[in-house]
Protein backbone atom coordinates (compact mmCIF):
# COMPACT_ATOMS: atom_id res chain seq x y z
CA UNK A 1 0.00 0.00 0.00
CA UNK A 2 2.85 2.33 0.95
CA UNK A 3 4.48 1.62 -2.38
CA UNK A 4 1.27 2.34 -4.18
CA UNK A 5 1.18 5.69 -2.46
CA UNK A 6 4.78 6.35 -3.47
CA UNK A 7 4.04 5.52 -7.09
CA UNK A 8 1.02 7.80 -7.10
CA UNK A 9 3.06 10.59 -5.53
CA UNK A 10 5.82 10.23 -8.10
CA UNK A 11 3.31 10.19 -10.94
CA UNK A 12 1.53 13.21 -9.54
CA UNK A 13 4.78 15.17 -9.32
CA UNK A 14 5.64 14.09 -12.82
CA UNK A 15 2.29 15.29 -14.13
CA UNK A 16 2.55 18.53 -12.25
CA UNK A 17 5.97 19.34 -13.69
CA UNK A 18 4.74 18.95 -17.21
CA UNK A 19 1.69 21.16 -16.97
CA UNK A 20 2.77 24.14 -19.00
CA UNK A 21 2.21 27.52 -17.36
CA UNK A 22 0.21 29.64 -19.76
CA UNK A 23 0.29 32.95 -17.93
CA UNK A 24 3.21 35.26 -17.21
CA UNK A 25 3.95 34.96 -20.82
CA UNK A 26 5.36 38.33 -21.69
CA UNK A 27 8.91 38.21 -22.96
CA UNK A 28 9.63 41.18 -20.72
CA UNK A 29 9.99 39.03 -17.58
CA UNK A 30 12.25 36.49 -19.33
CA UNK A 31 13.28 33.81 -16.84
CA UNK A 32 12.46 35.79 -13.71
CA UNK A 33 9.05 34.29 -13.09
CA UNK A 34 8.73 31.67 -10.39
CA UNK A 35 5.97 29.22 -11.13
CA UNK A 36 4.26 28.02 -7.95
CA UNK A 37 2.15 25.59 -9.99
CA UNK A 38 -1.56 25.20 -9.62
CA UNK A 39 -2.83 26.47 -6.26
CA UNK A 40 -6.10 25.93 -4.40
CA UNK A 41 -8.44 28.31 -6.27
CA UNK A 42 -9.69 30.17 -3.18
CA UNK A 43 -8.34 29.75 0.35
CA UNK A 44 -10.00 32.35 2.55
CA UNK A 45 -13.43 33.55 3.66
CA UNK A 46 -14.58 37.08 2.85
CA UNK A 47 -15.13 39.34 5.85
CA UNK A 48 -16.88 42.13 3.93
CA UNK A 49 -20.04 42.24 1.82
CA UNK A 50 -21.46 44.24 -1.07
CA UNK A 51 -23.46 47.13 0.40
CA UNK A 52 -21.21 47.50 3.45
CA UNK A 53 -18.80 50.40 4.01
CA UNK A 54 -15.29 49.40 2.89
CA UNK A 55 -12.86 49.14 5.85
CA UNK A 56 -10.44 52.07 5.66
CA UNK A 57 -6.68 51.50 5.47
CA UNK A 58 -3.46 53.41 4.99
CA UNK A 59 -0.58 51.66 3.20
CA UNK A 60 2.84 52.72 1.92
CA UNK A 61 3.21 52.87 -1.86
CA UNK A 62 6.25 52.31 -4.09
CA UNK A 63 6.41 56.04 -4.83
CA UNK A 64 7.09 56.67 -1.13
CA UNK A 65 3.72 58.21 -0.29
CA UNK A 66 1.18 56.68 2.04
CA UNK A 67 -2.23 56.13 0.52
CA UNK A 68 -5.49 56.05 2.48
CA UNK A 69 -8.68 54.63 1.05
CA UNK A 70 -10.70 57.34 2.82
CA UNK A 71 -8.90 60.07 0.87
CA UNK A 72 -10.95 59.13 -2.22
CA UNK A 73 -14.32 59.34 -0.45
CA UNK A 74 -16.66 61.74 -2.20
CA UNK A 75 -14.19 62.06 -5.11
CA UNK A 76 -13.51 58.80 -6.92
CA UNK A 77 -14.76 55.26 -7.30
CA UNK A 78 -11.97 52.96 -6.16
CA UNK A 79 -10.97 49.61 -7.64
CA UNK A 80 -8.80 47.56 -5.28
CA UNK A 81 -6.82 44.90 -7.12
CA UNK A 82 -5.25 42.41 -4.73
CA UNK A 83 -2.81 40.10 -6.49
CA UNK A 84 -1.16 37.17 -4.69
CA UNK A 85 2.57 37.72 -5.18
CA UNK A 86 5.21 39.54 -7.19
CA UNK A 87 7.26 37.50 -9.70
CA UNK A 88 4.57 34.87 -10.24
CA UNK A 89 2.92 33.99 -13.57
CA UNK A 90 -0.64 35.28 -13.50
CA UNK A 91 0.12 38.36 -11.36
CA UNK A 92 2.87 39.50 -13.71
CA UNK A 93 0.27 39.23 -16.45
CA UNK A 94 -2.46 41.35 -14.85
CA UNK A 95 -1.35 44.87 -13.93
CA UNK A 96 0.47 45.55 -17.25
CA UNK A 97 -2.96 45.25 -18.89
CA UNK A 98 -4.50 47.67 -16.37
CA UNK A 99 -1.64 50.01 -17.18
CA UNK A 100 -3.00 50.66 -20.70
CA UNK A 101 -6.62 51.22 -19.67
CA UNK A 102 -6.22 54.45 -17.68
CA UNK A 103 -8.80 56.11 -19.97
CA UNK A 104 -11.46 53.60 -18.88
CA UNK A 105 -10.82 54.55 -15.26
CA UNK A 106 -10.79 58.28 -16.08
CA UNK A 107 -14.04 58.07 -18.03
CA UNK A 108 -15.67 56.42 -15.05
CA UNK A 109 -14.20 58.73 -12.42
CA UNK A 110 -12.29 55.85 -10.88
CA UNK A 111 -8.86 55.16 -9.45
CA UNK A 112 -7.09 51.81 -9.25
CA UNK A 113 -5.07 50.73 -6.22
CA UNK A 114 -2.85 47.68 -6.70
CA UNK A 115 -2.06 45.78 -3.50
CA UNK A 116 0.10 42.78 -2.64
CA UNK A 117 1.60 41.49 0.62
CA UNK A 118 5.15 41.89 -0.79
CA UNK A 119 7.54 44.48 0.57
CA UNK A 120 8.24 47.80 -1.16
CA UNK A 121 11.66 46.98 -2.73
CA UNK A 122 10.26 43.79 -4.28
CA UNK A 123 7.21 45.62 -5.64
CA UNK A 124 9.46 48.39 -6.95
CA UNK A 125 11.73 46.04 -8.92
CA UNK A 126 8.87 43.89 -10.20
CA UNK A 127 6.61 46.71 -11.36
CA UNK A 128 9.56 48.46 -13.05
CA UNK A 129 9.47 45.65 -15.63
CA UNK A 130 5.83 46.31 -16.50
CA UNK A 131 6.64 48.77 -19.23
CA UNK A 132 6.07 52.44 -18.69
CA UNK A 133 5.75 53.58 -15.10
CA UNK A 134 2.42 52.35 -13.79
CA UNK A 135 -0.15 55.17 -13.62
CA UNK A 136 -1.82 53.79 -10.48
CA UNK A 137 -0.47 53.51 -6.92
CA UNK A 138 1.04 50.16 -5.94
CA UNK A 139 0.60 49.52 -2.23
CA UNK A 140 2.45 47.18 0.07
CA UNK A 141 0.43 45.24 2.64
CA UNK A 142 3.63 43.69 3.94
CA UNK A 143 3.66 44.80 7.57
CA UNK A 144 1.85 43.93 9.75
CA UNK A 145 1.81 41.11 7.27
CA UNK A 146 -1.32 41.09 5.11
CA UNK A 147 -3.29 43.14 7.63
CA UNK A 148 -5.52 44.79 5.03
CA UNK A 149 -6.01 41.55 3.08
CA UNK A 150 -6.93 39.87 6.34
CA UNK A 151 -9.39 42.65 7.23
CA UNK A 152 -11.17 42.15 3.90
CA UNK A 153 -10.99 38.36 4.24
CA UNK A 154 -8.69 37.67 1.32
CA UNK A 155 -5.53 36.53 3.12
CA UNK A 156 -4.78 32.89 2.31
CA UNK A 157 -3.31 30.33 4.68
CA UNK A 158 0.11 30.45 2.96
CA UNK A 159 0.37 34.20 3.72
CA UNK A 160 -0.38 35.58 0.27
CA UNK A 161 -3.60 37.27 -0.77
CA UNK A 162 -6.29 36.07 -3.13
CA UNK A 163 -6.59 37.44 -6.63
CA UNK A 164 -9.45 39.73 -5.70
CA UNK A 165 -11.19 42.84 -6.98
CA UNK A 166 -13.23 45.18 -4.80
CA UNK A 167 -15.04 48.17 -6.27
CA UNK A 168 -15.91 50.89 -3.80
CA UNK A 169 -18.22 53.73 -4.79
CA UNK A 170 -17.73 57.40 -3.96
CA UNK A 171 -19.71 56.98 -0.73
CA UNK A 172 -17.15 54.46 0.45
CA UNK A 173 -19.55 51.55 0.05
CA UNK A 174 -18.50 48.24 -1.54
CA UNK A 175 -20.47 47.75 -4.76
CA UNK A 176 -18.69 44.72 -6.26
CA UNK A 177 -16.50 41.88 -5.03
CA UNK A 178 -14.78 39.28 -7.15
CA UNK A 179 -12.50 36.71 -5.58
CA UNK A 180 -11.13 35.06 -8.70
CA UNK A 181 -9.60 31.62 -9.03
CA UNK A 182 -6.01 32.41 -8.00
CA UNK A 183 -4.74 30.53 -11.06
CA UNK A 184 -6.67 32.66 -13.55
CA UNK A 185 -6.76 36.29 -14.55
CA UNK A 186 -10.21 37.91 -14.24
CA UNK A 187 -11.45 39.44 -17.47
CA UNK A 188 -11.12 43.18 -17.84
CA UNK A 189 -14.78 43.54 -18.76
CA UNK A 190 -15.86 42.56 -15.23
CA UNK A 191 -14.29 45.78 -13.91
CA UNK A 192 -15.49 47.90 -16.82
CA UNK A 193 -19.14 46.84 -16.65
CA UNK A 194 -19.26 47.50 -12.90
CA UNK A 195 -17.68 50.94 -13.28
CA UNK A 196 -20.18 51.80 -16.02
CA UNK A 197 -23.02 50.69 -13.75
CA UNK A 198 -21.76 53.07 -11.07
CA UNK A 199 -21.55 55.90 -13.57
CA UNK A 200 -25.09 55.31 -14.82
CA UNK A 201 -26.40 55.32 -11.26
CA UNK A 202 -24.98 58.76 -10.53
Amino acid sequence: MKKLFKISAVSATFLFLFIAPVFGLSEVFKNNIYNPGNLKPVDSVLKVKVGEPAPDFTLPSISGEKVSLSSFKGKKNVVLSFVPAAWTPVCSDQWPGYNIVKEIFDENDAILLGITVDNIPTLFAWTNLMGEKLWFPVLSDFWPHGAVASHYGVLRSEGISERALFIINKNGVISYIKVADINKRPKLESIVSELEKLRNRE
Partner: protein
Amino acid sequence: MKNVFRCLVILICLIVSAGLVFATDTQPPAQDGMLPEITLPVPKNSAHQDYLWVTGKTSFTIPQVKAEVVIIEIFSMYCPHCQREAPAVNKLYKKIENNRKLKGRVKLIGIGAGNSDFEVSFFKKKYRIPFPLFSDADFSIHEKLGSVRTPYFIAVRINKDGTHRVFYSKLGAIKDTDQFLNMISGEVKRDE
Protein backbone atom coordinates in the same frame (compact mmCIF):
# COMPACT_ATOMS: atom_id res chain seq x y z
CA MET B 1 -1.60 -11.30 -7.36
CA LYS B 2 -0.33 -8.31 -5.46
CA ASN B 3 2.52 -7.99 -7.92
CA VAL B 4 0.25 -8.09 -10.91
CA PHE B 5 -1.86 -5.39 -9.35
CA ARG B 6 1.21 -3.27 -8.62
CA CYS B 7 2.47 -3.63 -12.18
CA LEU B 8 -0.92 -2.66 -13.50
CA VAL B 9 -0.97 0.46 -11.35
CA ILE B 10 2.51 1.45 -12.52
CA LEU B 11 1.54 0.85 -16.11
CA ILE B 12 -1.63 2.93 -15.85
CA CYS B 13 0.26 5.76 -14.14
CA LEU B 14 2.89 5.76 -16.86
CA ILE B 15 0.37 5.73 -19.69
CA VAL B 16 -1.62 8.57 -18.16
CA SER B 17 1.56 10.59 -17.51
CA ALA B 18 2.85 10.05 -21.02
CA GLY B 19 -0.52 11.01 -22.48
CA LEU B 20 -0.58 14.23 -20.53
CA VAL B 21 3.01 15.05 -21.40
CA PHE B 22 2.23 14.73 -25.08
CA ALA B 23 -1.00 16.61 -24.65
CA THR B 24 0.42 19.63 -22.81
CA ASP B 25 4.03 19.75 -23.87
CA THR B 26 3.24 20.98 -27.38
CA GLN B 27 6.17 22.61 -29.12
CA PRO B 28 5.97 25.90 -31.02
CA PRO B 29 5.63 25.46 -34.81
CA ALA B 30 8.99 24.43 -36.24
CA GLN B 31 10.60 26.14 -39.19
CA ASP B 32 9.80 24.14 -42.36
CA GLY B 33 7.09 22.37 -40.43
CA MET B 34 3.32 22.63 -40.51
CA LEU B 35 1.01 24.81 -38.50
CA PRO B 36 -1.40 23.00 -36.16
CA GLU B 37 -4.98 23.40 -37.32
CA ILE B 38 -6.27 26.71 -36.05
CA THR B 39 -9.88 27.67 -36.69
CA LEU B 40 -10.71 31.36 -36.46
CA PRO B 41 -14.09 33.06 -36.70
CA VAL B 42 -14.67 35.22 -39.77
CA PRO B 43 -14.29 38.82 -38.59
CA LYS B 44 -17.46 40.94 -38.35
CA ASN B 45 -15.65 43.87 -39.93
CA SER B 46 -16.28 43.64 -43.68
CA ALA B 47 -12.96 45.30 -44.57
CA HIS B 48 -11.21 42.53 -42.64
CA GLN B 49 -13.32 39.90 -44.41
CA ASP B 50 -12.22 41.32 -47.74
CA TYR B 51 -8.62 41.54 -46.58
CA LEU B 52 -8.52 37.86 -45.67
CA TRP B 53 -10.89 36.90 -48.50
CA VAL B 54 -12.94 34.70 -46.18
CA THR B 55 -16.42 36.06 -46.96
CA GLY B 56 -19.43 33.75 -46.99
CA LYS B 57 -18.14 31.53 -44.17
CA THR B 58 -18.44 31.55 -40.41
CA SER B 59 -14.96 30.29 -39.68
CA PHE B 60 -11.73 29.67 -41.53
CA THR B 61 -8.30 28.11 -41.12
CA ILE B 62 -5.01 29.88 -41.89
CA PRO B 63 -4.32 28.09 -45.21
CA GLN B 64 -7.76 29.28 -46.40
CA VAL B 65 -6.67 32.92 -46.25
CA LYS B 66 -6.18 34.29 -49.74
CA ALA B 67 -2.49 35.01 -49.52
CA GLU B 68 0.88 33.60 -50.38
CA VAL B 69 2.23 34.41 -46.95
CA VAL B 70 0.34 34.87 -43.68
CA ILE B 71 2.18 36.49 -40.78
CA ILE B 72 0.71 35.66 -37.36
CA GLU B 73 1.54 37.67 -34.28
CA ILE B 74 0.78 36.03 -30.94
CA PHE B 75 0.28 38.89 -28.51
CA SER B 76 -1.52 39.82 -25.30
CA MET B 77 -2.87 43.16 -24.15
CA TYR B 78 -1.33 42.26 -20.79
CA CYS B 79 2.18 41.98 -22.28
CA PRO B 80 4.34 45.12 -21.95
CA HIS B 81 6.52 44.19 -24.96
CA CYS B 82 3.43 43.73 -27.15
CA GLN B 83 2.14 47.14 -26.06
CA ARG B 84 5.47 48.77 -26.83
CA GLU B 85 5.83 46.96 -30.16
CA ALA B 86 2.29 47.68 -31.38
CA PRO B 87 3.29 50.81 -33.40
CA ALA B 88 6.17 48.90 -35.04
CA VAL B 89 3.84 46.09 -36.11
CA ASN B 90 1.43 48.67 -37.55
CA LYS B 91 4.37 50.05 -39.51
CA LEU B 92 5.14 46.57 -40.82
CA TYR B 93 1.54 46.29 -42.03
CA LYS B 94 1.75 49.68 -43.76
CA LYS B 95 5.01 48.73 -45.44
CA ILE B 96 3.38 45.59 -46.82
CA GLU B 97 0.33 47.51 -48.03
CA ASN B 98 2.52 50.16 -49.66
CA ASN B 99 4.67 47.61 -51.44
CA ARG B 100 3.21 46.76 -54.84
CA LYS B 101 4.87 43.35 -54.86
CA LEU B 102 3.60 42.37 -51.43
CA LYS B 103 0.16 43.99 -51.16
CA GLY B 104 -2.59 41.39 -51.47
CA ARG B 105 -0.08 38.56 -51.32
CA VAL B 106 1.13 38.96 -47.74
CA LYS B 107 -1.45 39.22 -44.96
CA LEU B 108 -0.99 39.96 -41.29
CA ILE B 109 -3.16 38.84 -38.36
CA GLY B 110 -2.85 38.87 -34.57
CA ILE B 111 -4.07 36.35 -32.01
CA GLY B 112 -4.54 37.57 -28.41
CA ALA B 113 -3.40 34.75 -26.13
CA GLY B 114 -5.77 34.56 -23.16
CA ASN B 115 -7.50 37.76 -24.25
CA SER B 116 -11.28 38.07 -24.43
CA ASP B 117 -13.10 39.78 -27.31
CA PHE B 118 -13.38 42.90 -25.17
CA GLU B 119 -9.66 42.88 -24.35
CA VAL B 120 -8.66 42.35 -27.97
CA SER B 121 -10.94 45.11 -29.22
CA PHE B 122 -9.62 47.48 -26.57
CA PHE B 123 -6.04 46.73 -27.65
CA LYS B 124 -6.99 47.23 -31.31
CA LYS B 125 -8.62 50.58 -30.63
CA LYS B 126 -5.90 51.79 -28.27
CA TYR B 127 -3.06 51.18 -30.74
CA ARG B 128 -5.18 51.81 -33.88
CA ILE B 129 -4.28 48.39 -35.26
CA PRO B 130 -5.39 48.24 -38.91
CA PHE B 131 -5.15 44.45 -39.44
CA PRO B 132 -7.50 41.75 -38.05
CA LEU B 133 -7.03 40.59 -34.45
CA PHE B 134 -8.62 37.48 -32.97
CA SER B 135 -9.31 36.55 -29.36
CA ASP B 136 -8.16 33.33 -27.71
CA ALA B 137 -9.81 33.76 -24.32
CA ASP B 138 -9.34 30.18 -23.16
CA PHE B 139 -5.73 29.89 -24.45
CA SER B 140 -6.77 26.99 -26.71
CA ILE B 141 -4.95 28.34 -29.79
CA HIS B 142 -2.03 29.43 -27.64
CA GLU B 143 -1.67 25.90 -26.29
CA LYS B 144 -1.71 24.43 -29.81
CA LEU B 145 1.14 26.79 -30.65
CA GLY B 146 3.29 25.52 -27.81
CA SER B 147 2.29 28.11 -25.16
CA VAL B 148 4.89 30.53 -26.49
CA ARG B 149 5.83 33.71 -24.66
CA THR B 150 4.72 36.97 -26.28
CA PRO B 151 5.18 38.62 -28.69
CA TYR B 152 5.81 35.65 -30.99
CA PHE B 153 5.79 35.79 -34.78
CA ILE B 154 5.04 32.99 -37.20
CA ALA B 155 5.14 33.33 -40.98
CA VAL B 156 3.47 30.69 -43.13
CA ARG B 157 3.90 30.13 -46.86
CA ILE B 158 0.61 29.06 -48.45
CA ASN B 159 0.94 27.15 -51.70
CA LYS B 160 -1.51 27.18 -54.56
CA ASP B 161 -2.50 23.57 -53.89
CA GLY B 162 -3.59 24.49 -50.35
CA THR B 163 -0.56 23.02 -48.62
CA HIS B 164 1.54 25.22 -46.39
CA ARG B 165 4.92 25.52 -44.69
CA VAL B 166 6.08 27.55 -41.69
CA PHE B 167 9.22 29.48 -42.60
CA TYR B 168 9.56 31.82 -39.64
CA SER B 169 8.76 31.03 -36.00
CA LYS B 170 10.45 33.21 -33.41
CA LEU B 171 9.99 34.71 -29.98
CA GLY B 172 10.32 38.45 -29.65
CA ALA B 173 9.67 41.54 -31.68
CA ILE B 174 10.77 41.83 -35.31
CA LYS B 175 13.80 44.06 -34.87
CA ASP B 176 14.47 44.99 -38.47
CA THR B 177 11.23 45.21 -40.47
CA ASP B 178 13.04 45.80 -43.79
CA GLN B 179 15.16 42.72 -43.37
CA PHE B 180 12.07 40.77 -42.36
CA LEU B 181 10.19 41.99 -45.46
CA ASN B 182 13.13 41.08 -47.66
CA MET B 183 12.92 37.56 -46.37
CA ILE B 184 9.16 37.54 -47.04
CA SER B 185 9.73 38.90 -50.57
CA GLY B 186 12.18 36.06 -51.14
CA GLU B 187 9.45 33.55 -50.21
CA VAL B 188 6.88 35.21 -52.44
CA LYS B 189 9.28 35.27 -55.40
CA ARG B 190 10.43 31.72 -54.95
CA ASP B 191 7.46 30.22 -56.80
CA GLU B 192 7.35 32.73 -59.64
